[in-house]
């Protein structure tokens, strides 16, 4: 290769790598998005606790990913097609590391690590929303540590790390396809959320037995719609990096196409949820269209690169309807999920993964089902074991008195809105 060709390759390498880094920063913002959404949809007296959890997760996520996660998720070629692999503790490129050669001129070793590391904490953050307002802070942190350090990377390895899902059915179109993680990220978190909600049980006062013996669901209203909306918008903003960055290069056609399907699916998710909430609930529920936007985004995440534009709109719209129905259904089942994390990330994560099989030409629905099933089979039991183990050792749930008083005072000895008057009875 002559000088000009090398220079051109270097320029291409630089722009590819730059996009992965910009996408990393965008994914970072999603952590703020999750924090805002969760606090907005819960009660004021638990706000400090929610922020603490979400900030701690970023720290635990990045540090454990550096220590073991990256190495579990991308153990190297010798584990191709495997169920598990490990490349040793810590990070740092192999001997003879040449940046431009590392990923065929797409990004450096360091970009690879930091982009993947930002994704990692997401899985635990998803759980956070479903267990909010009643979990003990220490137990939650321990759960997150293990979930992010081990469970998430192992599942990730199956597909993105070159494991068995990647070679399923001989690979190629027969293999499992999950572009940016409807299953690998969102449903992993979603199964954890479901396990947490089941083991913890509903918040005090959420489901009341009426005189007639029937159960009634009480609204425990979120205390700040503005913060919830900030959360939703920032999550979407970050999703441009989450999906766009998953192209793993700045390829003009690839990234721009993913931007279009992502944005249209999000928009369609809002529209779908708007129709559903207006029809079912009589008055249009703001929190439902916010869930709808996220549902559309989760739904398109698996197939943003291979699904056609009209199909992306359909996938998003169905996700928007689905999330409304799912929130109402889980409420009927008395599974208390304050922010709708199970409906958004698990239900729509599964939907999005299936949608690839349904809408993307040539993709195999069998592989999609295999991926969904295997993820469920690992994550749900693992999360249940973790939560039950914590329940019987450290304890998982705060005392009734602490829950009534709010976790901000009981767990942190602080208030989120010092000086403001709000009715603590609500």
């Amino acid at each position, binding site marked *: 290769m002559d000088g000009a060709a090398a220079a051109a390759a270097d320029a291409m390498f630089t722009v590819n790598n730059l996009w992965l880094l910009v996408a990393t920063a965008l994914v970072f913002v999603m952590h703020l998005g999750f924090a805002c959404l969760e606090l907005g949809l819960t009660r004021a007296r638990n706000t400090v606790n929610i922020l603490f959890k979400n900030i701690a997760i970023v720290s635990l996520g990045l540090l454990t990913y550096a220590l073991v996660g990256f190495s579990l998720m991308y153990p190297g070629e010798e584990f191709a097609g495997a169920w598990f692999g490990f490349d040793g503790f810590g990070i740092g490129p192999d001997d003879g590391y040449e940046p431009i050669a590392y990923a065929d001129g797409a990004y450096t070793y360091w970009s690879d690590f930091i982009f993947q590391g930002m994704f990692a904490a997401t899985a635990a953050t998803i759980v956070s929303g479903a267990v909010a307002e009643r979990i003990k802070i220490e137990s939650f942190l321990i759960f997150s540590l293990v979930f992010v350090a081990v469970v998430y990377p192992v599942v990730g390895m199956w597909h993105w790390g070159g494991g068995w899902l990647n070679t399923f059915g001989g690979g190629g179109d027969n293999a499992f396809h999950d572009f940016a993680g409807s299953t690998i990220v969102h449903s992993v978190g979603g199964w954890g959320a479901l396990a947490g909600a089941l083991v913890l049980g509903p918040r005090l006062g959420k489901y009341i037995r009426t005189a007639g013996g029937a159960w009634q*669901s*009480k*609204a425990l*209203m979120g205390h700040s719609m503005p913060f919830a909306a900030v959360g939703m918008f920032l999550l979407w903003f970050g999703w441009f990096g989450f999906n766009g960055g998953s192209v793993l290069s700045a390829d003009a056609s690839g990234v721009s196409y993913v931007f279009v399907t992502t944005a249209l699916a999000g928009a369609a998710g809002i529209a779908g949820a708007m129709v559903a909430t207006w029809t079912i*609930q009589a008055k249009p529920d703001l*929190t*439902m269209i916010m869930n709808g936007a996220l549902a559309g985004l989760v739904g398109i995440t698996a197939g943003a690169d291979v699904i056609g534009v009209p199909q992306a709109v359909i996938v998003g719209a169905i996700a928007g309807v689905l999330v409304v129905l799912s929130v109402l259904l889980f409420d009927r089942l008395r599974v208390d999920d304050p922010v*709708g994390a199970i409906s958004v990330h698990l239900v729509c994560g599964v939907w999005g993964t299936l949608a690839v099989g349904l809408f993307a030409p040539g993709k195999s629905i069998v592989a999609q089902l295999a991926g969904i099933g295997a993820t469920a089979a690992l994550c749900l039991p693992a999360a249940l074991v973790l939560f039950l183990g914590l329940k019987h050792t450290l304890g998982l749930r705060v005392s009734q008195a602490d829950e009534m008083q709010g976790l901000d005072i009981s767990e942190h000895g602080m208030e989120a809105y010092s000086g403001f*008057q709000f009715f603590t009875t609500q």
Partner: protein
Amino acid sequence: MKLVIAYIRPEKLTEVKQALLREDITKLSVTNALGCGAEKGIHENYRGSEVEVDLLKRARLEIAINDQYLDRCVDTIAEHAKTSESPDEQEQGDGKIFVLNIADCVRIGDGTRGAPAIG
């Protein structure tokens, strides 16, 4: 000396205050309150669960007043806090007025005591 406590609809506060002003009743205090009364709560709906809004927002007025102004004060509030003209519709949620006796009163600024300190 009497203490008039009135619970009214918050949106009526400005009107009542201005009506009292026209009657030369200029001193009053207001707090936020939640009231549980005959009126049915507003129907709210959050994520599919019914919201039991049995505590409605009310403004609580407190007016200390000399006895000769009492009737004027009570009547003015009663008149302007009403929402409807037709007698059959106006019965619920418009509020209540309670009158209590005051034993003593002090104006902090100059130490005046008793009835002259009220106004």
